[in-house]
């Protein structure tokens, strides 16, 4: 009787071990990863006479994205839904100036609706931080870039370098994106 009981538990345990991993393996099939993080430590001012794009000069991470030659465009390689987060340090280059800056995203040369943000700056707030987070569907070959414009010629995105006490540079723009699905 005792042996039968032991037999019962051993068989139950073994069958459980046998079936569960099969189901779990099916669930945990890995998805191809894709991510990108770029930044710039240069102050940039948009051209008032033509559409301007933000230039990045510093790549922290890149996988399954292709960066364009000038650090302006990025090409997706894997289809999916992506989360994009960006931080832009807007500022005035002349303390007597006030106005605003707009920053938006473009996909294949066309502005993406609902991605434009505006921030005012003035003598009382010479520098401000503008952050964005949104979801976007990208397909293989889609090219995206970041457009910006300002209400005046001495308003742009600003970087601060050589800061004291080992403080890291304040970059003018930082963008991170990764594939969520």
């Amino acid at each position, binding site marked *: 009787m005792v042996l039968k009981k032991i037999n019962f538990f051993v068989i139950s345990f073994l*069958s459980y071990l046998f079936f569960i991993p099969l189901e779990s393996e099916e669930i945990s099939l890995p998805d191809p990863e894709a991510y990108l993080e770029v930044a710039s430590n240069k102050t940039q001012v948009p051209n008032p006479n033509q559409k301007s794009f933000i230039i990045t000069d510093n790549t922290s991470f890149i996988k399954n994205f292709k960066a364009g030659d000038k650090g302006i465009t990025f090409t997706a390689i894997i289809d999916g*839904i992506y989360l994009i987060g960006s931080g832009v340090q807007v500022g005035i280059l002349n303390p007597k100036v006030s106005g605003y800056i707009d920053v938006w995203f473009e996909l294949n040369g066309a502005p993406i*609706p*609902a991605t434009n943000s505006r921030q005012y700056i003035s003598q009382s707030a010479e520098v401000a931080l*503008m952050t964005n987070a*949104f979801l976007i569907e990208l397909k293989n070959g889609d090219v995206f870039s970041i457009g910006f414009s300002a209400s005046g010629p001495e308003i742009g995105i600003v970087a601060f370098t050589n800061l004291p006490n080992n403080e890291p540079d304040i970059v003018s723009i930082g963008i991170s994106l990764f594939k969520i699905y």
Partner: protein
Amino acid sequence: MQIFVLFFLVFLNSSLQADNQSWKNQDAYVQLSSVVTQIPNLGLSSIISGETIDMVKNFQITPNRDAVVCQIPGLYYISCGLQPATIVRGVSGYMDTWFNVNGVAIPSSNSRQYVDENLRVSQITNNSIFQLNEGDVISTGFSSSNPYIGIVYIQSYLSSEPSVTSYIFSAYKIR
């Protein structure tokens, strides 16, 4: 015979368990935005509407588009971006914004931004991570210190630049 019955029961049990866990693998995301200037009711907590549905999967959106309803339980990343602004000149004050789950304001999710004559349009971005259950209703609350402070939509007349939306809300299931 007993062994076969036992095997069958265990197999059935493991299959059922796998079915019960299948939601873990399902995608869920939503993004709403607004091209409407919105002003909160003074002294009352108000909810922001996002009348444009940019993308949605495994979320329901309420008929007046001021909340989303979770359909797949899980851990979620939620963010919103607002353009607080003074609607008329000469006004100054602040705007607050926070997240609600099932009508209850979530602690630590509130942010404040001042706007004034020199800083007529500003921006707030909020990010949080929430554990959500099926049927949980998520919305964005806002309030302001002045009846002429709200979130603004700014139409762009340039074909090369999109309009500035007053509000964008995004959520997706992390796991």
